[in-house]
């Protein structure tokens, strides 16, 4: 089994999830509480990775982070000559974009499900919007936030098209577990492919089983969400 690839995938998935939790929360907050007028546009943009072929997304990301793009140029200055495409950080950027809807949608759903009156009650008690969000909305939306994190993690573990486009296939740098399986099949090494696939299947199943068991317990504590 390609332990190096598995390790890389785990690292990528954990970092992607962490970044998404930080980036996704304000977006989900905005989607929940902003006026209706322009919301549909942001919703559509956030949901785009769900329907766009990974190769298309990967292609645009590749262009966007290339050395001649503004993002690539800034990165180059910051890291004194570093390149984003075909590197782990570049892969991370692509993964974050690719899994964005998987974090934002469950989160926004959970935020919206928090009784509006609780939020208003907090405002009337003199607590600011931000503090209300942190102290009332987030704790009550924990199940949705956990779901978002788990889905992003699992989704990143299995991503293929985007990785291939943006990261290529560099062992130890960008060769994730799904690419490793593809390589093994290409090389007619079915035994190795079967082992790695089984590992991924078992991991995905355990993560999902854990999520569902965990959520039941959370819901038992906080019945309103």
């Amino acid at each position, binding site marked *: 089994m390609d332990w190096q690839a598995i390790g890389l995938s785990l690292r990528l998935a954990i970092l992607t999830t962490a970044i998404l939790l930080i980036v996704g929360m304000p977006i989900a907050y905005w989607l929940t509480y902003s006026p209706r007028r322009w919301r549909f546009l942001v919703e559509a943009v956030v949901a785009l990775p769900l329907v766009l072929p990974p190769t298309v997304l990967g292609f645009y990301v590749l262009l966007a982070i290339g050395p001649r793009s503004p993002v690539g140029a800034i990165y180059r200055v910051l890291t004194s000559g570093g390149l984003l495409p075909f590197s782990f950080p570049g892969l991370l950027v692509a993964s974050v974009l690719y899994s964005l809807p998987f974090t934002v949608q469950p989160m926004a759903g959970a935020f919206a499900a928090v*009784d509006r*009156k*609780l939020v*208003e*009650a*907090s*405002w*009337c*008690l*003199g*607590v*600011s919007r931000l503090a209300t969000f942190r*102290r*009332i909305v987030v*704790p*009550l939306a924990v199940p949705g936030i956990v779901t978002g994190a788990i889905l992003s993690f699992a989704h990143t573990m299995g991503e293929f098209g985007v990785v291939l486009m943006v990261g290529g296939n560099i062992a130890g740098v960008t060769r994730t577990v799904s690419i490793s399986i593809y390589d093994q099949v290409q090389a007619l090494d079915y035994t190795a492919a079967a082992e790695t696939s089984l590992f991924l299947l078992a991991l995905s199943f355990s993560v999902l089983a854990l999520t569902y068991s965990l959520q039941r317990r959370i819901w038992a*504590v*906080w*019945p*309103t969400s």
Partner: protein
Amino acid sequence: MANELACACRKRLPSGLAVDAAFRLPLDRATVTVLFGPSGSGKTTLLRLLAGLERPDEGCVQFRDQTWFDSTRGVSLAPQLRRTGFLFQEYALFPHLTVRRNIEYAARDPRKASEWMSRFDLTWLSPRLPRSLSGGEQQRVALARALAAEPALLLLDEPLSALDSPTRGRLRQELRRELVESGIPSIIVTHDRIEAMALGDWMAVLIGGVVHQAGPIDEVFRHPANVQVAESVGVENVLPGEIVGRAEGLATVRVGGTRLECVDSGETGAVCVCIRAEDVTLAPGSAAVSSARNRLAGRIRSLVREGPLARVEVDCGFPLVAVVTAQSAGDLHLNPGDPVYAVVKATSVHLLPR
């Protein structure tokens, strides 16, 4: 600046109702104001406009020397800065926080929170989560939480409606006492006449989104400004009165120019007198003396037959509605304009504190 709440604002709701509320509350006299009106008249919306949870289309709201909203100057103060304590109909306690944490959330420091908890007898409930509390306990926590934030104005949206009826009766008086003790001007939304009478000093009547009358509660009940107000406060024997004497377990209460005797329930001063229309018996002038304590001479003002019953309005110094069987009305030859005695047993007169 005047010590008053002046509101004149308009808002059109998606339902088509246009709330057009113009009224002034003198806060030194209107300690507890009842915002009264039928369901769907915009009471809750008006409360939300005052709290800043809803934005008027136009108009202004002035509280003491603070402008809360002014569409011409583009002022709209956030709810956080208005500092109104808002008590929601279902109390909106934070479900993931214990009773203590709910109150600490509002209080400036934990010591203050403890004071509020002991004042509302909540200390023993302190580690419990809201969902394990009874309706009455939740109401106490919500009120303590609202007061712990030291609001300038309390807004209560049907605070007793989520409770079962015996609890409601008990908590009504408790609530009135707490509100008066706190000294914070309060506005209570209700559509229940008796609740209005029992809780308020001042009353604003909202019908179809428009404030038709605002003034001292007796005045509104006694002199409704127009037909709509009269209909909505519809005095079916809920009358303002005053205890003027008591002897041997009976209390004498003056209603208008008439005195009624009733069972002494320990009330003093101003009360509301409630008599069910079914408990009023009618007798022709010649009837012999009965065991009933109250025999009120009056004249029949109107008589309406409703199936097997007849609804008779008698003017005996104050309007008194009686419901008798249509058959009795026929046997007694009751006709509008006839003199009649209205007979009410002392045990049928219920007093509520005001």
